[in-house]
């Protein structure tokens, strides 16, 4: 359940940004979560509501933008799509993949008042 601490980090960032960007209520949060980021979207939603309760983002809507996993295949010399860390290259079946997208956990955008 590290999603709980991730949501607490999100709240920290929202509070810090509230001071910098001068808002007092957050109504919607867009998170960009990579398919390889070890975050479970459902757990994130569950924890998000619990953590935001009573804060400036109480009842804020959470939108999760899922980013596909991508890796560079050393054998094929090209980028391929993967769903899991242990996926083989869909083109050549090799394991020599260097992940280059899909690991992110970012706050992308906020709707604030």
């Amino acid at each position, binding site marked *: 359940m590290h999603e709980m601490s991730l949501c607490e*980090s999100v709240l920290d960032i929202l509070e810090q*940004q509230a001071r910098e960007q001068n808002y007092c209520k957050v109504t919607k949060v867009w998170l960009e979560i990579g398919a*390889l980021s070890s975050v479970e979207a459902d757990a994130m939603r569950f924890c998000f509501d619990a953590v935001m309760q009573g804060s400036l983002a109480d009842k804020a809507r959470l939108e999760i933008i899922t980013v596909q996993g991508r890796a560079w295949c050393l054998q094929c010399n090209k980028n391929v799509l993967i769903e899991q860390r242990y996926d083989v290259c869909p083109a050549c079946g090799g394991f020599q*993949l260097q992940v280059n997208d899909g690991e992110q956990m970012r706050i992308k955008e906020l709707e604030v008042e």
Partner: protein
Amino acid sequence: MCSVCGCSEGETTIEHSHEHEHHHGKHSHTHDYGSGAAHAHAPGLSQARMVQIEQDILAKNNQYASGNRDYFSKHGILALNMVSSPGSGKTSLLTETIALLKDQLDISVIEGDQQTTHDADRIRATGVKALQINTGKGCHLDAHQIGHALENLKPATESIVFIENVGNLVCPASFDLGEAHKVAILSVTEGEDKPLKYPDMFYAADLMILNKIDLLPYVDFDVEQCIQYAKQVNPRIKILQLSAKSGAGIESWVQWLNASRAMQLVDYARTI
């Protein structure tokens, strides 16, 4: 009171080397954001606006981790983040390693568990410094806790700091503590498909230790298959097989430690 940050983190408790107990209070959120125009509702006009943030959720942890990494590098300390499921033998491996090496070099240990100081007590019984972090409900150690632990532990220059993470193959994978390497320990009493079941952890680790190999004759554990799975998830991973209990294979672990320490000291020599 924290000198780094004036923090508060749920139910976390970090042992102190001096007398007073440092209890982190319940996280509190303040809601004072100054006075904006926000409460002046005008009918028909929405005050909603969009704010682009583009901030990494783990940015704060990563900042603390990079602070810890600087500290380790300035002091020539090799820090290793030991991760595994509960019961794989992390603490036994550490006590055996300490018994072998404590006359040659300084070792200290940061222990992470939800509750109790049992592990730190076991380490202290070997005669080296240990500090327990109880994470309360927390499922992993974070870089911020490690920063505070270092303030109290004050590890010696050119030493090794082992960080024994909470027994959990999921959450600790995402939290950089500033260590040189994550070392994943897997015992042969578990399934050989653990690297596939918990790929994030084996992907994040630089070394996998297959522990309890003295039990191989008694369990159905396919070593070759396990190694193949681990390499599938992480082609760069190095793998050692040993038994902390019988001592078999432990010399290769000591060699790996010495090699990693030498690399850390190369960096250190550059900075002094």
